[in-house]
């Protein structure tokens, strides 16, 4: 496949595939979102539509589970999350194929990341930005996704970072349908795992520690065939880290496993919380020799990709003894 020109007039910030990988959407500082669909015959991406989605850079976007139709959420530096639905009867490339369902306008700072929850959790979307607050929204009626409520608001950072300093925020949901609702949130150099208790409140169930710089990217692996969860992070300190999360019913004293009093969630200490999370650092690699900009798992959670300042994309795979090794290096520079 040849490289294809997206047609964006400014920086591309994010790329998101739909559930089956037959559509890909891109967002840019040119304030536009573009959707491309895969031509089955030629196996090439073809522009389906392009439209102005925000009044500032669009920095993150995500597709909803197909259980809820074809929907895209976009987050922008204009502090808004917009939700879009495809109108199949509108002509392709008309700029009218995607209609705005709703604008979620609670953030007080530029947004950095937006992600739909996995389908089994319902029609939900999470967003985080420079105000350091994680907001989870829920559709009142999934079959009519025009009405949304702010269901959860969690202060991840006590204070928002100073505007003149570099910052980064990202989030990822636990995709497993056999695990309780969890979301990993990166705020600057820390990662918190939030879990929902039986009262429906989110609390910090664990922290992923050891990061020595801004976390650029986080990805929660689909845990197909595994009892435990894997989360990968890409950090400005040059390291790709893979954490293992095991759910246990017992309390233990692992340093990274915290069970703090739920912050800003509930005063009721008798509420039954979810399973205890045990966190282990499974792998830590500095092969990129510089900042790591993205990490992303494949569909089955067996291959992790990472891209970094060495101009390489690395693919990591667990061996028989469960240690992650770089199985392939893809050079993105003309030097090799």
């Amino acid at each position, binding site marked *: 496949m040849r*490289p294809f020109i997206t047609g964006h007039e400014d920086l591309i910030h994010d790329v998101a*595939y739909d559930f089956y990988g037959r559509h890909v959407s891109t967002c840019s500082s040119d304030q536009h979102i573009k959707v491309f669909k895969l031509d089955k015959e030629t196996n090439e991406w073809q522009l389906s539509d392009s439209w102005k989605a925000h009044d500032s850079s669009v920095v993150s976007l995500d597709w909803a589970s197909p259980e809820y139709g074809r929907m895209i959420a976009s987050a922008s530096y204009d502090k808004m999350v917009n939700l879009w639905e495809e109108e199949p009867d509108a002509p392709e490339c008309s700029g009218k194929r995607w209609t705005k369902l709703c604008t979620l306008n609670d953030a007080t700072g530029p947004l950095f990341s937006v992600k739909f929850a996995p*389908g089994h959790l319902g029609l939900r979307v999470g967003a985080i930005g420079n105000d350091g607050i994680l907001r989870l929204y829920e559709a009142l009626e999934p079959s009519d996704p025009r009405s949304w409520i702010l269901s959860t608001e969690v202060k991840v950072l006590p204070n928002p970072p100073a505007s003149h300093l570099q910052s980064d925020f990202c989030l990822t949901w636990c995709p497993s349908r056999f695990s309780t609702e969890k979301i990993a949130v990166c705020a600057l150099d820390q990662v918190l795992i939030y879990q929902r208790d039986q009262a429906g409140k989110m609390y910090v169930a664990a922290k992923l520690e050891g990061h020595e710089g801004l976390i650029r990217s986080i990805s929660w692996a689909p845990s197909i065939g595994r009892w435990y969860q894997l989360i990968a992070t890409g950090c400005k300190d040059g390291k790709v880290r893979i954490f293992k999360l095991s759910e246990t019913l017992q309390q233990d004293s692992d340093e990274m496993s915290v069970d703090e009093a739920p912050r800003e969630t509930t005063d009721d200490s008798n509420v039954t919380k979810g399973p205890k999370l045990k966190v282990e650092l499974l792998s830590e690699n500095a092969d990129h020799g510089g900042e790591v900009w993205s990490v992303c798992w494949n569909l089955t959670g067996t291959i992790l990709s990472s*891209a970094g300042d060495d101009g390489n994309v690395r693919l990591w795979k667990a061996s028989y003894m469960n240690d992650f090794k770089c199985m392939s290096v893809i050079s*993105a520079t003309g030097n090799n």
Partner: protein
Amino acid sequence: DNVFLYEVPIKESLEKFKEAGKALKFKVCPIFPLSVAFVTGKGNDYNKLHTPALSSLDHSKIYKIYVNKLFQIYQDLGDDRYFSIPTIGLVSSKSRRQHFETVNLAVDALIDELELCIQQMAENGDFEPVADFEDCATIINCLRAVHCTLDSGEEDSRAAFFANLEHWVNRADGEPDETTINQVLLGNVNMPVYNSYSFWSLLGRLLMRGLFDQAIGVVEKSGLLDHLKGNCETSHSAITELILMVQQYPYESEEQFRAWKATLLQLTQTYADSLTQVDQELRIFILDILSLVSGNRANILRYSKEWFEAFCGMIMFYIPTLELAEEYLDAALSEHPLNVCNVWEQPCVDIIRGKIHFILPTLESLENATAAFVAAFCEAKGLLQSPPQLRHLENSQLFSEADDLFSPRNSMATYLLNTLAMELCCQGDRELWAVSIGLISLSPSDNESAKRLAIAELLPHFPFQTNDDVEWLLSICAEWHLPDVARTIHRILGNSLLYDNNVVEAMSNFSKAGEF
């Protein structure tokens, strides 16, 4: 390293790229080969998405057929997928041999499919993966010869063993090829070819490789017999007798081999004791070849060029038994060290030494699907530890975790089969998806719960297109008791139909999903 097909995403030097604060990112697509890299940076060069050439095989029809065939072979093994020696219930001394015979047939079928796949890829011009597949074929041919032939106890198993041994050695390096033979035969116009060492070396190599027809052909073409007929009746009759003996090589029986070897030893001794009218050098060559075929180890080592040639020669002419295989191997390797540039040589040595688990990483690096099925067949033969055999390690620290599909307690074959299943799901191909679910269902792990959960997580991602696809999906849900997943699928279908303006069908699916 893989490379980007047409152009690389980063155009400038890495230093400039970093100084400008640009960022390289990579996004994995649910259809893995469609994943893209892109650069967050200003300029026309950076409004492109780049797909790397992750594997040229991914979309190859030949490869998909090959993987499907391997799965069918594995599926057809039935209960013979598992290695067990019944000691209670219906105990039959024949059952073990029958089991080996069945698995050996599966290995035969795998090799046939692999060689067909290689041939079709070569015809198709897909030369890049052919080299890796050839290395795989060489390793598996060695495995079949050493571990998957004699133990079936069939009447013709001994003959099959020699055939498989020759097939391995001769396919491994394709030597001596026609060009080499012609070079030797037409080598020096000033000297008869039979006076040169290269001729006798070629003859020895052909004999050690079991290429008897070619060896006889070379002798006939060389004019040796005509020369000897007029000059030395003793040497002529010795060579004529040797040709006759070689034509009668006793493939079938050990007893016949003893008699055959005794005759050859007698022939060699007689020739050594006789006066001849040929040059001393030619007499030595003739004597060397006679003693080589009589099983003289020194001459076998001297006339061979590669360790596997010497190994094959010793098996053919010294004592044809695998009980001495390691001894033969050590002798062969002491004379001809391994060529580490050939990927297949070390695994073949490991196979002969019985260290089957050592070959799996190499096979996996060459071709995943082949590695997984070979591991499964080896486990079925008891050549690798199976899950029940690993249970005794249960209390060790290594296996302290609960089993999942990738737990080391589930055996290497289970790990490789499940890993393959996960990989096939990422190709976006419906046929490979069916193989994938089948592999998880049939993998030797007895943890049905882990299999069920894995299938439940995977199924909604199936890229359905037709009604048959949907029926297949729902039948899997029914088989594995996954009502929630079935509801999810109905919801996805409902929405998909709604987009196609098929409202009635959409409502029907929403209804089945419990929406109304």
